[in-house]
């Protein structure tokens, strides 16, 4: 069984302006890291746009219309202090959400074992009705909704190891008992949500705030004592991963001290978890990660583990 890798040139055409940390070079760094021969067996694929119906699974239809109408024909527009759109951004966002839905299709039908989506813009801050924090559509939420509606899955777990809390994904999951959302993130940090007391309407949200300066030990402890056992209890039929690589010690937007080795450790355990609980069905999608080399190495670590599954 293979690992599928979705990406598209459009993701690099989503222009956020000179010096913006969520920049096209991020994907170039990822692709460059994957030129290594050990990734030759990756099945590379180009995604299609998410349909209106798929997006409506996680966003208000009027939000989708408004967002696409806000895309400028030339130049750039700021949606908030951080979130920039330019002429190709709408298509890139549609295709990013589409990539994660197609990954779910491929994994749910057994076409491939697992899949990774190297997409821009990222998604986990986007709420059902609002773009924020570099995110336009909540890719992982759209995919979770698609998994439940299209493939009739009854239990989907979303694990989010981006250094920022996935407020949008949490909002989406909050009242949906068929979804379990687990996030480790630095706190306090943008967007300010994700305290351990936020647990979801049916105890289906697990937040693990980590203090600035904390590293391998705290991270491994949090995953071993809280994340993995909660996923085991939930018995998901599919694991979705919001894979952000900005908890790395070199990342300029945060203050955690994770190392390359930590990302290897985590990737391997996520793959093991999927093997044990849901026949290896795992779909990971790129969120943040703003140190280009660390990002490339992080994605490579994630994919190495997925390909060895």
């Amino acid at each position: 069984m293979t690992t599928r890798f979705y990406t598209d040139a459009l993701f690099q055409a989503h222009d956020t302006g000179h010096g913006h940390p969520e920049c096209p070079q991020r994907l170039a760094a990822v692709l460059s890291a994957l030129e290594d021969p050990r990734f030759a067996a990756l099945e590379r694929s180009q995604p299609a746009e998410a349909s209106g119906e798929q997006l409506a699974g996680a966003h208000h239809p009027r939000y989708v219309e408004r967002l696409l109408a806000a895309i400028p024909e030339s130049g750039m527009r700021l949606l908030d202090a951080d979130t920039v759109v330019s002429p190709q951004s709408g298509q890139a966002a549609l295709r990013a959400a589409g990539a994660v839905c197609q990954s779910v299709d491929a994994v749910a039908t057994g076409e491939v074992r697992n899949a990774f989506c190297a997409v821009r813009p990222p998604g986990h801050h986007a709420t059902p009705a609002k773009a924020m924090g570099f995110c336009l559509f909540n890719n992982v939420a759209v995919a979770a909704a698609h998994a439940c509606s299209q493939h009739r899955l009854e239990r989907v777990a979303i694990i989010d190891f981006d250094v920022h809390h996935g407020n949008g994904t949490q909002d989406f999951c909050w009242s949906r008992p068929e979804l379990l959302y687990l996030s480790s993130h630095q706190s306090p940090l943008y967007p300010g949500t994700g305290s351990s007391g936020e647990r979801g309407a049916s105890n289906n949200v697990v937040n693990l705030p980590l203090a600035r300066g904390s590293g391998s030990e705290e991270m491994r402890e949090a995953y071993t004592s809280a994340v993995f056992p909660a996923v085991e209890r939930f018995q998901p039929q599919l694991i979705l991963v919001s894979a952000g690589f900005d908890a790395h010690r070199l990342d300029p937007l945060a203050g955690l001290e994770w190392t390359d080795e930590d990302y290897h450790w985590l990737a391997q355990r996520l793959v093991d978890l999927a093997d044990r609980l849901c026949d290896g069905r795992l779909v990971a999608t790129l969120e943040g990660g703003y140190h280009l080399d660390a990002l490339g190495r992080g994605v490579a670590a994630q994919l190495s583990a997925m390909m060895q599954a």
Partner: protein
Amino acid sequence: MFQFVQKQVADAMSAPPVSIRDDATLADAEAVLEQHGFNGCPVVDAEGRLVGIVTGLDLLRAFRVTPDALVPQYRRIMAFPVADHMCQAPLTVTPDTPLTRVLQRMLDLGNTGFPVLVDGRLVGVVTRRDVLRELRLSTSSEAPQ
């Protein structure tokens, strides 16, 4: 501000740095601080490895009144080896440390600067002034949005 996010210590540090040897005296150290207007100065061994950092506060501390003498013996104290009075385990950064993290560490710890190390060897120094300069350059060259 976005440009500042991309900056690393290597973009801002003074290199090669002014340093003093570990066999220098407190008087030598004071002369270097005075000459350059520094708050502190890295101390290196003969191979250029960082062994400590000496600050103005370390010098003042050497003159603290103690029960050993009625009056501190100023001239004798100035001849003490700097190695006995420096901070021996200074916090350091590397050239690839993001300046955002240096700034945060300065706020957390109150440090005025950090030695920059590669494999234990001192390659530079990054100070508050360096960070402020990079902030100014990053913001002044930014096109209005």
